[in-house]
Each structure stands twice: as structure tokens, then as C-alpha cells.
């Protein structure tokens, strides 16, 4: 499977496939199902400086080919995560992409400093795009200035490379991307969830206690693909692509759009074995087409000199 080896800033990966933040907790539950060491990396649940209780339930709702979540960044706090929760990934020898959230720049920096100091952590993933908390988070994702500020501040306190996780809830995602690139980001993760809502038809009231939630799953894939297509042509940063991946064809599409690695979120709920399955299928897909390395696919949707594949 050497054709799958993928090296990105801070992430030395056997393959370009990882579970997405918030859909894998810290790996303990999945370690009961399969050997985590097959994964390229693991994007773990968002860490905030202090423990957070999250939102009231219901926290999830189904939509056509998608789902809404409003977990609200429940987590035991950065310190507890570092000390008690990274063992499963550590033991498996896979690099952790540590998702960082907060409601102010200080918050982000505090959580970032704690997580960056963990040995298991290969890189940070700055979540400036969580739609599910009252304040903080998402407004950073819709303002190039603010996004750059928080990125710069976090890069200063982090010895590890910083990926910025972009929000699709913006009119000009490339502007945010180029702005955080200048501010020192080493990579991008995209996309986080689209803000959405589901109502109970009989009562007319929102299903989620938080009212709005983040839309994920195959429904958002076309949005993710076009954003990666656009951003990958406007920055030099490597992109971890996500948004509705549930098949090997989806992975190929994200790479073709411009991603260098991918994350699988919602699909883990439908099929908890999906990450190892997709890694196997990705290798077969490449082998069948005699593609010597997965990185050849990156950006072929727009690269004019792309390798003819068939």
C-alpha cells in the first residue's frame, strides 16, 4: 500500500484517510471494532480550554441524504483530553489532528497550547467554523480579518503545524483561505457543516433543542467539492477534504477537486467500519488503474497537465 503514503505538515500518514472531528470521539469506541493503526490519522473531537457540557438534547436530526447535529462541542477540556484520551491513537501509532475550539482568541490559544504539547498530536485543526455554539467559533470563519488573527495567535503558541478548518457558511471561502494562509496556517480542512434546521411538521417547532444545527453527509458533497476546487487553485496549502464521503468514489472526487487527504465524518454512524473499508478500496482503485501514487490525483479536476488515467 505504499501508493497510499501521504506526508502532510505534521501528519506522516500510511494513507490519506482519517475519521473527521466529532465523529470518532478519541478513538476508544472504534478501537473495539477495528485496529486503529490502519488509519492514516485521526481528527479527534474539539478541545476547549475548559470542559463543556454541550447543548440540550435532541442533538441530531435526519434530513434527506444528510443529518443535522448540534452537539455543542461537549468535551472534557483540553487538559483532560491530553492526559486521559489520546492513548488509543497513541498506542496505534497514528498521528492525531487535534481539533481546537473556543469563543475568543485567548480560548483558542489556551486549548492550542495544551494540545500542541501532547506527544500524540501531529498537528492542530483550528475549528473556526462550528455553527453550534452561541458565541465564538463561526464568526471567525466568515471574516478574513478575524480568521487571520486567530490563526496568527494560535500559530504563535503552537509548536505543531496548524490546519484551519473552514466554514462553508460564507460568501467567499477563498478569501478566508488566502487570509489564513498569509497568517501562518500550514494546511486547510474543509468543509465544516452548513447551518441548517429541521422542523417537526406537526408542531412547527425546531427538532433540535439548539434550533439550528450543522448539516453534514452526502447532501453537502457538491458544495464541498466546489469549495475545494476553488480554494485549491487559490492557495498553496494542502487540503484535508471532507463533506459527505461515504464511498471510494467520493474519496477520488475530493482528491480530484484538490484535496491531499480526506476525512470521513457522518458515514461512520451508518457504517462504523467504513474507514478501514475505504482504505482498502482506495488501494484497489488505484491498483486497477495502475496509478503509482495517490497524490497524482490531487487537483486533476483543474490541472491542465493532469496525467491521463484511462
Amino acid at each position, binding site marked *: 500500500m505504499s501508493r497510499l503514503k501521504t506526508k502532510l505538515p505534521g501528519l506522516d500518514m500510511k494513507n490519506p484517510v482519517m475519521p473527521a472531528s466529532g465523529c470518532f*470521539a478519541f478513538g476508544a469506541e472504534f478501537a473495539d471494532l477495528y485496529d486503529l493503526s490502519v488509519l492514516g490519522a485521526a481528527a479527534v473531537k474539539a478541545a476547549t480550554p475548559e470542559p463543556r457540557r454541550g447543548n440540550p438534547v435532541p*442533538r441530531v*436530526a*435526519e434530513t434527506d441524504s444528510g443529518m443535522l*447535529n448540534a452537539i455543542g462541542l461537549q468535551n472534557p477540556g483540553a487538559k483532560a483530553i491530553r492526559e486521559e484520551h489520546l492513548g488509543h491513537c497513541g498506542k496505534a501509532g497514528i498521528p492525531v489532528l487535534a481539533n481546537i475550539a473556543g469563543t475568543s482568541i485567548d480560548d483558542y490559544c489556551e486549548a492550542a497550547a495544551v494540545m500542541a504539547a501532547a506527544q500524540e498530536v501531529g498537528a492542530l485543526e483550528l475549528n473556526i467554523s462550528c455553527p453550534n455554539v452561541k458565541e465564538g467559533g463561526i464568526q471567525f470563519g466568515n471574516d478574513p480579518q478575524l480568521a487571520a488573527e486567530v490563526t496568527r495567535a494560535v500559530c504563535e503558541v503552537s509548536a505543531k503545524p496548524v490546519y484551519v478548518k473552514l466554514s462553508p457558511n460564507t460568501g467567499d471561502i477563498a478569501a478566508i483561505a488566502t487570509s489564513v494562509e498569509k497568517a501562518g496556517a500550514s494546511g486547510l480542512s474543509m468543509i465544516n457543516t452548513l447551518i441548517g434546521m429541521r422542523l417537526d411538521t406537526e408542531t412547527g417547532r425546531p427538532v433540535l433543542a439548539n434550533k439550528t444545527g450543522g448539516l453534514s453527509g452526502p447532501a453537502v458533497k457538491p458544495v464541498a467539492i466546489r469549495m475545494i476546487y476553488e480554494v485549491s487553485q487559490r492557495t498553496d496549502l494542502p487540503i484535508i477534504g471532507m463533506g459527505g464521503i461515504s464511498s471510494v468514489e467520493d474519496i477520488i472526487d475530493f482528491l480530484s477537486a484538490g484535496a491531499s487527504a480526506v476525512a470521513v465524518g457522518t458515514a461512520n454512524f451508518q457504517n462504523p467500519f467504513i474507514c478501514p473499508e475505504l482504505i482498502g478500496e482506495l488501494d484497489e482503485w488505484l491498483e486497477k488503474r495502475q496509478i503509482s501514487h495517490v497524490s497524482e490525483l490531487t487537483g486533476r479536476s483543474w490541472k491542465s497537465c493532469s496525467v491521463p488515467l484511462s
Partner: protein
Amino acid sequence: MIKEKLKLAKKEEVAANVYKFTLEGSHIPPRCSPGRFLHVQAGDGRAMLLRRPISISAADDQTCVIIFRASGAGTEAIASVRVGDTIDVFGPLGSGFPLLDDGTALLVGGGVGVPPLHFLAEELVKNGIRVKSVIGFRSAEDVFLADELRQYGEVEVTTEDGTYGTKGYVTDAALMNSEFDTFYACGPKAMLHPLQENIEAPGYVSLEERMGCGIGACFACVCDKKDGGYVKICSDGPVFEKGVVQL
């Protein structure tokens, strides 16, 4: 835990829109026990992404029974599966009811909370426990599992409109009982709350919540504990000892 396609061997409509599915497979999930559930794929999984949690109502090495109400798009899709076709299930998930090994038990269930009690009654009786069940439904046409439960002991049925058994709510009927060592209850929070607050004997409640992963990884299904902290219903539960969770 396994993820497997089980064959629908038998399909019965046991009450209005309530289906009993007997599933078969070479890999019937091991460790099925009363109170645990299967996470069931609805349809082809393309338009409906989330699995539906359904309690195990009976199980042996070759078969496994679920009973569910077709009440929404997903359960309707599951109900439309034809005998001989397969259903994608993941499980068994969660922790089941701890089983008494002597004494008497009161089982309380409302609507689709009744199916796990059937499995529970069977296992308790195997353990030599005397079982009484109090189960509640909206109306006569909604009643199911009453006859099956009678195999294991006394059964009292309530209906909200009085068209079958006692008229009234299952909680009221349940609270009239006092001669038991342990109670076991399954149903909506509104039903569990008065039981947890008013029954003096020890007991267990089984909760429902909207779920994502079913295995404790997504934090969709948390419930506050009375003493602070929280539990995840899918993996720490769905069964909790009386007094542990806030209802």
C-alpha cells in the same frame, strides 16, 4: 458487536402498524440480552443516513426478534422489507437490564417500550423470578405482546381510552403495585419519571433518545446524571439504575 445483513425470516403485524420481525443469520449477534438494542438501517441508506435503534425482543443462536411501530419514514421503510430479504443491523449495542436471581419483579412498559420487557420476562423467569407486567397502550388496536407476556406471569394492560384492560395511564396502574423486589421500566421519559420518583424498591429504567453512532462516539444521546456529570444513553445505557439519571 457486528454489522451484518440478517434475513427477514418471518414478518407479522402484531398490532396496528406494529411489526414483529424474526431475523435470521449465520452471525446472529452474540450477547443479545434484554435491554440491548440493534441499530437498524432503514431503506438503502442513501436518503436516510441514520440507523434506527430497536430493542431486542427475543433472541437465540439462530434468530433474533424485533418489534417496532412503523411511525416515521425510517420505520416505515423497515416495515416494507419483504420476507426473504435482508436487513442491515449493527449490534447488539448498549448495556442490558441486570437480571435478578431471586425474588419478584415488576415490569412496566409503554407502547414501543414493551418489546424489551418480553425478552426480560423470559430471562427472569429462567432465573426463577416471579414476574408481573404492567403495560400501557393508547387503544385496543395498539395492544401487543400481552398474550406472550402472560406466559411468564400476571399481566395488567392499560389503555388510555379504556378500550382494552384498565382505562388510564400505565404509570398509575404500575404505582398501585408494591409487592415486588425490583422494577424494570421502559418507555418515554414522561413515563419513567414518576416511576423513578415514586417507587421505593430498587429498579432500572431504560431510556430513549435520538442517536447518531449508537456506540458512544458522537455525543448525540447524552443525559444528565442526578449527581452532576452525564451519561451516554447508547453506550452507558439505555438501562440505568433508578436514581442515576435526571428524567
